[in-house]
């Protein structure tokens, strides 16, 4: 699963619209599975399920009928497949109700179900969990995870929920002002800092000014009464631990500080408001 991040107005949705041939790019080409979207659209989109922005439906038709219409265009209208999708999206009981009577979450699930018609190899999803409750969000993302693991599906997901991307994605791409800023594996991006350590003391608060006077310490940030984050300069955790013990501090925990995607995002976009 690949996350597609960027501040508001960065061009995420526009990029996905262009990939779906709904907006013409001013320059450049977009290829999916080696096929140019603008020259060979049918082959490019054949194995792709897309959901850009809010999913849309024929609200006067039932969920089943909506799926049938799309299935007909994707050449896969077997009713057993449609029922399977409805079942998986927990909509089977209400499959014959008009979509107009569905809640926001149900519509979101139906939209995702639509993308699964025709055995796609790639899903392009724009904020697929937008407006869903935490349980529904977790369910959808776990479902996608399972599809990736067992069916070899690739998912390209645009989301502003960084924790979602952090938890479920393998890679991320970050764009701003229509350009790719950076990309990388989530595991590498979130690898713990080697020289930034979070220290928790057992019994008393630490004197940060005192620590700053030490040669190997670059920065000390206080997190709480008995917890600080220390940035080392050319030193390691063993050295710090010894120093603190020598100074009479009882250290109860000393761990490399875990990076977050939010920190990474802010560092590359410099956009506090849209984190």
């Amino acid at each position, binding site marked *: 699963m690949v996350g597609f991040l960027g501040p508001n107005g960065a061009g995420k949705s526009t990029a996905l619209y262009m990939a779906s041939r709904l907006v013409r790019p001013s320059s450049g080409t977009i290829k999916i599975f080696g096929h140019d979207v603008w020259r060979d659209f049918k082959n490019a989109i*054949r194995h792709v399920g897309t959901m*850009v922005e809010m999913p849309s439906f024929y609200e006067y038709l039932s969920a089943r009928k909506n799926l049938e219409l799309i299935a007909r265009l994707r050449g896969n209208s077997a009713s057993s497949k449609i029922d399977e999708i409805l079942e998986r999206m927990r909509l089977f009981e209400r499959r014959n109700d008009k979509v107009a009577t569905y809640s926001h979450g149900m519509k979101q699930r139906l939209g995702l179900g639509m993308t699964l018609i025709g055995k796609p190899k790639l899903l392009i999803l724009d904020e697929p969990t937008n407006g869903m409750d935490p349980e529904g969000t977790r369910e959808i993302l776990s479902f996608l995870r399972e599809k990736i693991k067992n069916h070899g599906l690739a998912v390209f997901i645009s989301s502003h929920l960084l924790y979602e991307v952090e938890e479920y994605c393998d890679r991320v791409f970050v764009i701003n002002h229509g350009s790719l800023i950076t990309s990388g594996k989530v595991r590498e991006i979130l690898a713990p800092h080697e020289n930034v350590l979070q220290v928790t003391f057992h019994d008393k608060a630490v004197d940060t000014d005192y620590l700053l006077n030490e040669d190997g310490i670059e920065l000390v940030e206080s997190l709480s009464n008995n917890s600080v984050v220390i940035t080392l300069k050319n030193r390691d955790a063993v050295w710090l631990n010894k120093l603190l013990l020598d100074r009479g501090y009882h250290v109860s925990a000393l761990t490399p500080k875990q990076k977050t995607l939010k920190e990474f995002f802010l560092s590359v976009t410099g956009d506090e408001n849209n984190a």
Partner: protein
Amino acid sequence: MPNMVLPLLHNEITKMTRTKLPYFGLFSVFLICLLLSFTTTAWNDSDTLNAWGYVGLCMQCVFTDVGLIFIAVFCAMLIAEETGFGTARVVLSSPVLRWEFYTAKVLIGLLYMVVMFATALLLSILLGSLKFQFGNVADSAGIIYGAKEVLGNFLLALFLDMLPMSALVMYGVFISAVTKRSGQAIGLVIGSIILIETTKNFINIGPYVFTTYRGFSWSIFHYIAQGVDYQWFPEIWKMIVVSLIYCFVIFTAGLIIFAKRDLNG
């Protein structure tokens, strides 16, 4: 990859049968035919009145006003409704090309027009045969036109009337392709038709506007049904040429505009 026009048309038929507007149109056709079955005798010379005259009058009345409005509104909603609600995005991010989508919309518009014609025809023939007689057109002096000649002219009028109505379908779909909401499209298509109809004769463009020829062939057929002298040519050539040019130009323009349009929100 297979051509998607037929699957799209299949989808359009599914949607058409599940919305109310097409049925309102057909019901209005029924009402007009029914009303005319009571009022035709007051309008026509009772000596020459026959079922042909009644059917011709029904067709003319239906496709001059009410039928025209329903066909125009139906076509104006076809694409605008889908772009407004976002369903066009869903369809067009499937393996469907813009020209296939647009062509399917034109075909469903034409199909609706044919259904309207068929409904008006069946109802008027049914009601006409209950009150009047099909057969030769005659007066007290004898047969004026034989039944075969009348039937031939009737079929010709039917075919010819479909030409300006097809141009209307193209026009409705064109307006639908250049607007973003169905309300906008309906307002524009009805407003522009009213504007054209009220101004065309002041600026002497009447013969060059396709709407001028709506019901035109039926008015000629009506003469035949009344046993009056008739002449199809040369006016009918003008009607054929104008209607076909409008069909081609409007279809092409609408298709090009729609193919180049961005569909983001």
